[in-house]
């Protein structure tokens, strides 16, 4: 029976190709627009590193002003960044599997080639654990070890892009790169890496690209490298110069730890609280102890990385699909009702209402399948359009999951749109139509 229904449906669709095209185009447009916005939302709100949810933790401790909370709108939250002193102290703990403090800086790169002018590049100052913690893919070499953190040793990890730019893409491990006035040895070259959102530091540009260069964080001291991200302070510096800044209560670093299991999370939490109690004795941490360890998803939720526009457009996109479906109902109704005489003959010859109903639904679902596939094509187009429009320096994730969403949306809307017209056509009175023929 299904085969027969399919044959009838295809016949009917072929009989009126323009109308069929209109039907398919209508639903494909709806799918294209809505899936584009679903994809945008999925890209921003998706989990960037799902297998480390709960073990990869963002560290927050309340070092802020005793007079008032860091964030007046959320007084229960500690500052969302850390001081230099605390990052350096907490790095010493061996409870976590990995831990890394970090911040963003701008360094001047002096290319060896005389044809290239010096330029400034986004650099991440961090500990060597950064690379294992965030599953950074390497094309050549690797990150640096703990001894390089301590020294600090003049080592650098290059992004794929920087390696292309400076070394034409060849294996540059062992070569040197001049940063400011110092030579750094390349120990690793990343494969292309584009975390979206940039979850390890969403506070300083959630959709920015990952940094171009990575060097040990302790170079901050001898080279006096300031942060190019946000810095917040509440207390005047004691003394002057860069060392006063490093010793100040200003918060400008991020700190991440990776633990083995929940037990270690608890142990690390206890360690933080003990640290805070100890600091209280020294006159710091005058607010109530409020230390937090946030999982990646909790952290991204608090940092509100999903743009409000993406949310608005998701709603509008889905409503757009609804309009397309209503439109589909109208056209299907006209198309089916025009076939009343033919259906009357079938009914008179003994086809049940159910059979007529199912036959017409089959036709709708065929339109749904074709519309959905065409919609996937339009989604690719739409996503590229949105990327270009926002001069986004990243691509939305149109993966198999999104394609499945497109087809599912298409089949569902075709089914819903087809119900009423199919119901109407199966309930016609054959007699009325047979009489006039």
């Amino acid at each position, binding site marked *: 029976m299904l085969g027969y229904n399919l044959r009838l449906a295809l016949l009917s669709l072929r009989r009126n190709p323009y109308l069929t095209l*209109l039907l398919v185009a*209508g639903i494909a*447009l*709806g799918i294209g*627009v809505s899936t584009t916005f679903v994809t945008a939302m999925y890209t921003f709100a998706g989990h960037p590193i799902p297998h480390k949810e709960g073990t990869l933790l963002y560290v927050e401790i309340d070092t802020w002003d005793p*007079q*008032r909370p860091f964030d007046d709108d959320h007084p229960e939250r500690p500052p969302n960044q850390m001081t230099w002193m605390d990052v350096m102290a907490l790095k010493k703990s061996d409870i976590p599997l990995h831990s890394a403090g970090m911040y963003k800086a701008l360094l*001047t790169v*002096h290319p060896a080639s005389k044809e290239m*002018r*010096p*330029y*400034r590049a986004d650099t991440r100052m961090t500990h060597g654990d950064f690379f294992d913690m965030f599953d950074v893919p390497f094309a050549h070499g690797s990150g640096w070890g703990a001894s390089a953190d301590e020294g600090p040793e003049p080592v650098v990890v290059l992004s794929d892009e920087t390696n292309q730019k400076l070394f034409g893409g060849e294996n540059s491990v062992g070569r040197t790169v001049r940063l400011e*006035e110092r030579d750094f040895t390349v120990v690793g070259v990343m494969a292309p890496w584009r975390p979206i959102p940039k979850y390890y530091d969403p506070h300083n540009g959630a959709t920015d690209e990952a940094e171009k260069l990575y060097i040990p964080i302790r170079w901050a001291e001898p080279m006096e490298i300031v942060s190019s991200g946000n810095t917040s302070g509440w207390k*005047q510096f004691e003394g002057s110069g860069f060392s006063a800044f490093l010793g100040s209560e200003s918060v400008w670093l991020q700190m991440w730890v990776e633990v083995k299991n929940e037990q270690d999370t608890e142990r690390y939490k206890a360690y933080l609280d003990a640290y805070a109690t100890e600091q209280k004795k020294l006159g710091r941490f005058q607010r109530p102890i409020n230390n937090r360890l946030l999982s990646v998803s909790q952290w991204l939720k608090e940092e509100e990385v999903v743009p*409000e*526009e993406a*949310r*608005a*457009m998701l*709603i*509008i*996109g889905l*409503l*757009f699909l*609804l*309009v*397309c479906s*209503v*439109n589909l*109902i*109208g*056209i299907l*109704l*006209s198309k089916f*009702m*025009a076939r009343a005489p033919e259906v009357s003959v079938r009914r008179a010859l003994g086809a049940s209402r159910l059979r007529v109903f199912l036959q017409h639904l089959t036709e709708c679902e065929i339109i749904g399948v074709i519309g959905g596939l065409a919609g996937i094509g339009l989604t690719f187009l739409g996503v590229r*359009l*949105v990327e270009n*429009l*926002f*001069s986004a320096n990243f691509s939305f994730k149109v993966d198999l999951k999104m394609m499945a969403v497109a087809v599912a949306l298409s089949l569902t809307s075709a089914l819903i749109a087809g119900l*009423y017209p199919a119901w*109407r056509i199966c309930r016609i009175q054959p007699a009325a139509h047979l009489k*006039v023929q």
Partner: protein
Amino acid sequence: MFEFGPIVRALIYNKGRFWLITLEIALTLAIVVNCATLMLGKYREMSRPTGMDEENILVVNSEVIDAALKKQAPLEALIQEDLRLLRGQQGVIAATVLQQIPLSGGGSSTGRRKAGSTLDTVSTPYFIVRDQAVAALGVSIVEGRDFTPDDFPPPEPDPDSPGAQGKKQEVDRFNVLVTKHYAEKMFPEGGALGGQVQNKQGSAIDTIVGIIDRMQCSWPTSKVAEDVMLYPGRPGTDRRVSYFVRVKPGAVADLYKDVEEKLLASNGGRLVEVKTLHEIKMKTYDGNAAMMKLVAGVIVLLFSVTSLGIVGLTSFSVTQRYRQIGTRRALGATRAAILRYFLVENWVVTGLGLAIGLGLSFGLNQLLVTVADAPKLEWGLLASCLALFWIVGLAAALLPALRGMKVSPVIATRTV
């Protein structure tokens, strides 16, 4: 009047189709009105006056990279030389240095409260500026005065010279300029000119000597967009310095081209980067412009889908009623009467759709305000959308109605 009664009865008889058009129009109106509101919000945000002569201001960043030159820090001599050079160029009105760049999205802010009060401190965006700042930014002073040379602190003494140690004052006192918006916020009962503000500890006290009509800070989309404090100082003593050069209208393009070369010729060993303040502003508003285009695209697509739908359904209803039309024509109805019938029918359906759409619009707006911080609906916009829809609905129905009008009375007699 007209065939109102028969039209309504015919609509009730043909419920399904009639409700479809109504629903489609209602939904389309709700989406379009809300999209237009989003667009208008984005447009308004970016077209607010910045208070500055942004089109005629060149922002010239200079960053010393040469090691030898870097050791000469502070770069006071280099900055003075650059300023002299810039001020001497053709068409230049004024040139100054700002420590941060307005409208750029990155800046500094501090906490201030009325001096002597126990109020909470208020977030205060500020710029440390050199002389000629008011002229170089093109802002206008509505009350009080511009900075005078006496307002600027002397160049930092050589830390090794005798007497430099321990000379630091307990309290930093400066004469500052603030925007009118900020003045009214800090001194709601007046008296801002000559008034004083302080930081929490009282270790910095600023006296307001002039009030600027309007100037936006580094974060033009924030709540403190129009709150600005200008500090007299000597910014740019680090390796990086941002010159602000205001030129006469028409002279921007020439200087834009030459300024990098001229600065490098006078002093190499650095990176120079030139932009107009307007370019910096537009980069900050990139997202707004893109969002407006995106929403406009959605509106156009939606209009096409809905008009096609109306054409299709009206067309179908005309075809179905060929025989009735023929009968009416045979009984003496004029062509105009037939056309009128379909148009009035369309008006009734569109009208009902718009009425329902009005309710949906407010519902959707409420949702968008809650989840996406969208702006509220405005009646003016709503009214224009309603008028537009009425016309589009009418235009979409016109084509099929004209076809119906041409039906010959003979049709009525043919198959009976």
